[in-house]
């Protein structure tokens, strides 16, 4: 499970380095997300650019990651592939998560201001 992060302005951007979030890595994804979201900014943005595919276990792990962040924090998603989007749409989880077309769109001027 490869997760890296960078704090940009008031947002912790977590980049998923794996190209699949599936049954094989769902638990380690959830555990690693807990480590990375316990501290840092209150807004968490998960960059899914590298992720081509998720199955229902992967979806469950992403939901679990959202549920385990503190009430004061939010967890949002960006850069979903067409197949990942399909899984969110079919399960209607796209109505639960804030989903952004890009990091830029999610953060707005934040990157420029981050210096």
């Amino acid at each position: 499970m490869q997760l890296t992060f960078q704090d940009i302005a008031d947002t912790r951007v977590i980049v998923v380095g794996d190209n699949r979030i599936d049954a094989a890595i769902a638990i380690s994804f959830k555990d690693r997300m807990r480590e990375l979201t316990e501290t840092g900014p209150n807004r968490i943005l998960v960059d899914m650019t590298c992720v081509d595919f998720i199955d229902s276990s992967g979806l469950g792990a992403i939901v679990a990651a959202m549920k385990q962040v503190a009430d004061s924090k939010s967890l949002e998603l960006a850069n979903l592939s067409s197949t990942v989007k399909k899984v969110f749409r079919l399960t209607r989880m796209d109505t639960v998560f804030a989903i952004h077309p890009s990091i830029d769109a999610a953060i707005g001027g934040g990157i420029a201001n981050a210096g």
Partner: protein
Amino acid sequence: MLAKKLCFTGCANDLHDKALPAQKAEMNLVFPGNALAVRRALKASMVGLRHLDLSQDEKGVVEIVLAEVLNNIVEHAYDDTHTGVIELTVSRQDDDLIFLVLDDGLPLPEAKVPAGAAHNLNTPTSDLPEGGFGWFLIKQLTRNLSYQRSGNRNRLSFSIALKDTQSF
């Protein structure tokens, strides 16, 4: 070529890109019923179906459905005390892909396809479901879903209509 070797060495008996040769409209894979073998078989299936020139939408639907069906077998039919192989056959009839999946594990509860109902998502975040999406996805994306238990064998068949896939 290296990637191919890494992916398929030591897996099922015929996990290579000739699994579904152009002249033969059927792909047959046999592989162990464990998580790692299923991951490889999924990859092999997508390679085996490559010559059909499926669109991104079509490939996505096939991969989602196969992942859910095969993971279900690994997690429920083959548990700690039952091991065995999974046999997957995919054939094409016009614009339909026909799937047959066999295993020798435990039967589905009540020997029937689970309801796979949609979840209620109008709940506090803490109550959101983290599982139970699998059969719902399978039912949404397939047609003619049918399950039979005969002897010690589970037999699941379904089809994916390629023309449906754009609307999902």
